């Protein structure tokens, strides 16, 4: 493998990793606070991409398209909490998990009913790549990497540096204790679902900009997102972000060894190996037995 090929693989892996990190963060946030794996995360992303394409076609501006996608998807996430997931509070994680799978199918069916199965795409100027020390970097990749890094940092900042973030972490740690100390679950949950929606939306628009917008795009990213959430330590958002980036990089950099076909398998072998050696994940802590 020449250095240029390696650099290019690393760039591709980093972009893919940031994308998995966004989806993994949305999954992990939900698991940490609402305590169930949200299988509709992928379809929130798909919805965001379609909303972005529609808003861009309507307004003619990519920025307006992306902003509308974030607002609409945050609204969708909050609505799904109010209408669906709120009713499962206090139940085992199986009930809301099944409900989220149902919601995923419902969202996709409604989407394909109205817009069909044909692919759509964002309108972005297509430019030649910049060659930098042998690595080919597309201008759009720099934008995407920057945007997703800012989004990831912003969500983590909300979580760790603001009062509402502290309350969310308190609920995540111990819901009963949080309630006993007067933390209002309503505000916490509405903020949580807004964050989940916004995170999924940035991921969905980013995926749509990089590839094409099709009904299965988000669903296909769900497995890597779950893998990142598990590898990072279940319910540990920072871990999910790091694990997502690591998964993307490992997949890309294993290519010279295993070829393009088996890179996904390699990342999952790594996942299994990590969990055998460290069952609580990279940053997770062992669940105390009460």
């Amino acid at each position, binding site marked *: 493998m020449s250095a240029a090929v390696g650099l290019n693989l690393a760039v591709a892996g980093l972009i893919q990793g940031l994308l998995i990190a966004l989806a993994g963060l949305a999954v992990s946030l939900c698991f940490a606070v609402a305590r169930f794996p949200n299988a509709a995360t992928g379809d929130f992303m798909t919805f965001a991409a379609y909303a972005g394409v529609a808003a861009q076609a309507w307004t003619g501006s990519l920025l307006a398209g992306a902003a509308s996608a974030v607002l609409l998807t945050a609204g969708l996430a909050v609505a799904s909490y109010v209408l669906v997931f709120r009713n499962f509070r206090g139940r085992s994680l199986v009930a809301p998990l099944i409900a989220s799978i149902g919601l995923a199918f419902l969202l996709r069916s409604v989407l394909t009913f109205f817009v069909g199965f044909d692919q*759509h795409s964002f309108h972005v100027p297509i*430019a030649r790549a910049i060659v930098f020390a042998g690595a*080919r970097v597309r201008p759009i990749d720099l934008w995407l990497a920057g945007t997703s890094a800012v989004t990831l940092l912003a969500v983590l900042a909300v979580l760790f540096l603001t009062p509402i973030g502290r309350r969310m972490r308190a609920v995540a740690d111990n819901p009963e204790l949080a309630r006993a100390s007067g933390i209002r679950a309503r505000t916490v949950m509405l903020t949580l679902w807004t964050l989940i929606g916004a995170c999924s939306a940035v991921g969905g628009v980013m995926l749509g900009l990089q*590839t094409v917008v099709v009904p299965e795009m988000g669903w296909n990213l769900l497995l890597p997102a779950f893998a990142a959430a598990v590898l990072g330590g279940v319910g540990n958002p920072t871990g999910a972000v790091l694990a997502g980036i690591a998964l993307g990089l490992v997949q890309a950099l294993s290519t010279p060894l295993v070829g*393009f076909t088996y890179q*996904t398998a390699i990342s999952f072998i790594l996942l299994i190996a990590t969990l055998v050696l460290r069952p609580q994940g990279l940053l997770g802590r062992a669940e105390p037995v009460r």
Partner: protein
Amino acid sequence: MPVRKWMLTRRVLGQAGAATALAAVVGRPARADRPYRIGALNPITGAGSTYGSGMQKTILFALEEVKRAGGVDGRPIEVYAEDTQTSPDAAVLAARKLIDANKVDAIIGTWSSSVSLAVLPITNEANCLLLHTSSAPALSTPAQNPKHLAWRFQAASHQIGDAYAAIAAHEKASRAAAMAFNNDVQIASVGFFRSAWEKAGGKLPNPVVYEPNRTSYAAELQQALSEKPDFLVVSGYVPDTSIILREAYEAGNTAKIVIPGWAMGPATVKALGAEVLEGLIVVDAVPDAGSAAFKTFDAAYRAATGNPGSSNIYAAMCYDMVAVLTLAMQKAGPSADNAAIAQVIPEVANPPGQAVSSFAEGRKLLQAGQKINYEGASGPIDFDERGDVTPVFGVSVFHDGKLEQRYLLK
């Protein structure tokens, strides 16, 4: 009163069951009196939906045309329509329903290899004919098609591979390369391209096999372009091909790119624009626009759908399926079973024989005891010993935002 309700339900069920059993015994007259039943199993929804409803409408109007011409002597025909959803699971359920409930004798118009491969064991088991529009090599191997009940109306992978090699020669390529979507059809077609190209004295590095649903194919492209080829075959589907074409442009690629016709649609042009697509070569099986059968098909297709017949090669294939099947039924006689009908399919479709372009023409000649050779709307429809047609490929080039047909490969 739940108990009584249950008993009542069971009694009703029992009666229904007995009635069904009786119908099964009494309602199966000798084959000659029984209508020949055709299942039109097409991709109405899913990835094939661009073609599916046109295919199904074509089967219906083609059968209507057969009826107007007097029908098959002694053999009324019934048709049942179903949707494959372009998914093997849904297609298997639909095929089971057609065979078990509707008792069809032939299933026609399955699209996409995964669907046809899933349906084939079911039709074989039921001694049902399967006329399909799929490329996978496995659909016509002796192991998969032991009774010769499956017939391919679309180009097979080896023919597509040969077409790529012929285009490379025509474009005077000196170094070729290939990329394939990771499934057996696409890998097989670039494999056949490689062997045909190397037989002709060219050299081809290992084709790059890529996975679906990746966010970027930049690294795959870089590997495919690493030996600086001037000719690159990209064998995939619409979404991945769109991404690869864009990234090839972004990477400043200078090799001529060739893709199969099914890997691009109107959405590709909208997404990428004229500049990125300039010079792209597209190869596809094309209908023989000058043939009499195509003209008849085209007029009826326009009346049924409002679109030109040339927009749906698979509908043209369905038109030919109906013609070939009904002509074979006419030749085999009213009491023939599917084995006998399958046996005479090459006799009505291949030379030697008087060339005919419709069921009406062929029926008259067959009644007079003459040999016929059906020349269809989607091509000359001549089957080899495995039951595969030899299609005509059209080679088009993207120029100024439009696809222009340049030459034919026969």
